[in-house]
């Protein structure tokens, strides 16, 4: 099974890449995906995760073909 893992904003800079393809053969949670894809990089505080473009908790289990994304809290535009 395989999934696409994407990183945005400061996480993309931290990891030095925008995405990974991750192969796996047993059930993985979103948190497991981070550990495997980033080779155990410490996840920054307040990191958010999305599964197929919807917010998801880190303990959610992923399926073949999913797209998982990690990113920092969203900050909108500078218009406050």
């Amino acid at each position, binding site marked *: 099974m395989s999934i696409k893992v994407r990183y945005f*904003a400061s996480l993309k800079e931290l990891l030095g890449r925008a995405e990974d393809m991750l192969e796996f053969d047993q059930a993985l949670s979103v948190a497991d995906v981070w550990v495997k894809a980033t080779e155990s990089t410490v996840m920054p505080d307040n990191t958010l995760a999305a599964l197929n473009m919807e917010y998801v908790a880190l303990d959610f289990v992923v399926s073949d073909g999913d797209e998982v994304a990690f990113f920092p809290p969203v900050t909108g535009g500078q218009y406050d």
Partner: protein
Amino acid sequence: MIKIVPVEFEPFSEVQAYQQQKHALRGQYGATNLFVGTMRDFNEGDSVKGMTLEHYPGMTEKQLELVVSEAEQQWALLDCLVIHRVGEVFPDDVLVLVAVWSVHRGDAFDASRFIMEALKSQVPFWKKELLEGNNRRWVAKNTDGYL
């Protein structure tokens, strides 16, 4: 309607053009509320020369649709137009437009505020500022809209 645009846009002509082609609105709306967000040249005590607005194509639109449909469930709205800029932006550039049409003003005022606040906390946009001296920094948090 929701649009994410990588180039400058003029909010008032967008509203006018949108309204003109919406024949269903004619005679129905008593209130149009517009919020236009513009980039400042300062933030947190520093001069800001420019900014990169990053987004997550696909998810950004999906979450924005969700915010607008939540607003449509809570208030009696006739129509909404949200346009958000992405990419390289500069002070005085328009970054966001939220236009809401309703029969009565209360719904238009309240729904606009809701859409803006939800947009800032739920919709994937991230901003990286270019400061005087060419340092760059990610903006880590939003304000409450008053400070």
